[in-house]
């Protein structure tokens, strides 16, 4: 195994992108707002560095197990980022609305089911069981994450909950990358990883280019400040509070009568 110039260039671009994004998160004080996303990016830096070193100096076996370990960690963190974004959009006051929770639970079940079906339907073009399992897992991961983020857009539109600027930008980046990943993993399923190595390499390069584009998008949008929110004037704030207390009062009365 060896790197060509394009591989090295893409590896350097992705690593620089990750570091630049981490710097933006720190300088613009976004770490506290998006701790899981920051951790996801930090782990990505670690992943690319460790895999690069093992690729150059380690054995194939060590590379394989490290790669699989990071693959599982990557999916776990992507789901954690999805949860972080969902809490920012759908749980602004710290508790899930019943309707939203129901919608999100249905979305999670549907996404998991469809991802499982599609990954089982795939018959990767390779004789190596481990490679076939990796391709299936990658496809599962891409379908799951893309469906979740598109589902979030649908649920927010249905419930009328708006997206805050930075949450929307992070989610858009992850969704676009996941959709491209579905295409790439489907192509890898068709052409495998062992018989046509050049094609596999091209697909991997395309994937990194798309990812670098997402990194650039996050760097630019997270550097920019979100538009300042319009504030309610004192009369409107009072009216809204009065409506809320009226509803709470009615609710307490109904609760008492229902006992």
């Amino acid at each position: 195994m060896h790197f060509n110039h394009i591989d090295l260039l893409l590896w350097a671009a992705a690593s620089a992108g990750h570091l630049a994004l981490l710097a933006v998160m720190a300088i613009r004080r976004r770490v506290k707002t998006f701790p899981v996303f920051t951790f996801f990016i930090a782990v990505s830096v670690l992943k690319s560095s460790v895999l690069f070193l093992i690729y150059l100096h380690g054995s194939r076996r060590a590379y394989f197990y490290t790669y699989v370990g990071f693959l599982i960690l990557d999916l776990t963190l992507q789901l954690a980022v999805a949860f972080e974004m969902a809490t920012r959009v759908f749980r602004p006051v710290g508790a899930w609305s019943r309707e939203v929770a129901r919608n999100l639970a249905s979305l999670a079940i549907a996404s998991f089911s469809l991802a499982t079906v599609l990954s089982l339907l795939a018959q990767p073009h390779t004789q190596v069981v481990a490679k076939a399992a990796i391709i299936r897992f990658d496809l599962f991961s891409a379908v799951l994450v893309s469906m979740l983020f598109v589902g979030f857009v649908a649920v927010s539109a249905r419930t009328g909950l708006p997206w805050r600027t930075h949450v929307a930008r992070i989610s858009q980046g992850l969704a676009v990358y996941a959709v491209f990943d579905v295409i790439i993993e489907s192509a890898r399923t068709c052409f495998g990883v062992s018989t046509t190595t050049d094609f596999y390499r091209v697909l991997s390069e395309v994937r990194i280019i798309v990812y670098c584009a997402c990194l650039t998008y996050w760097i630019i949008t997270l550097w920019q400040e979100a538009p300042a929110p319009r504030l309610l004037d004192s009369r409107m704030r009072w009216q809204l509070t009065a409506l809320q207390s009226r509803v709470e009062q009615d609710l307490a009365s109904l609760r008492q009568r229902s006992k």
Partner: protein
Amino acid sequence: MGLHLIVFLSVIAVFLFALTAVAGFYWKKSRTTSKSQWEQLIARYTFVDRDSIQQIAFDHIDGSGWVRNDEAARSLNSSEIWKLIGGMQGLDVLEKNCAVLIDMACYLQRWYPEAMTTADQLRKSAEEIQWHVGRLKSAVVPGKLESEFADYARPAIASYYLMTRRVLALYEGANFPELIKLQRTI
């Protein structure tokens, strides 16, 4: 290319098309003009006889929203309330309109993100109110109105009436351009 591969690629193509279509549809929906969203909100609101609602509400509360304790209070009986509200269908309408009223309050969060916290609390409270109204409906046996119905329905209808007033006051405060239409509707 084997049959299985063709099936797999077709399924992936359908999946990607559906995903893109759903994303596009809802993204466009969330970006549609506020005017059309407002029109949809108004369209969801079902007409109710405001005079009847007001009559039942003022049987239970006074003009300031306080529960009346005078002798003339709570003079309407179950049959009269049932007739004024329009029976089970009327309760259905109130349940649906309750959700629309909360959505009208939440609508403000599009321009005023500061209202988001309160709007979400309102949404959660409204869900619970709907659940209680649902219980009230299920407790009513058609054709056999118990005296308890008036005790349950009166405060629920009074609450609904006050909610309409509060929502109107909220939009008056916001100088909402469609206020006159809202006043005519609710």
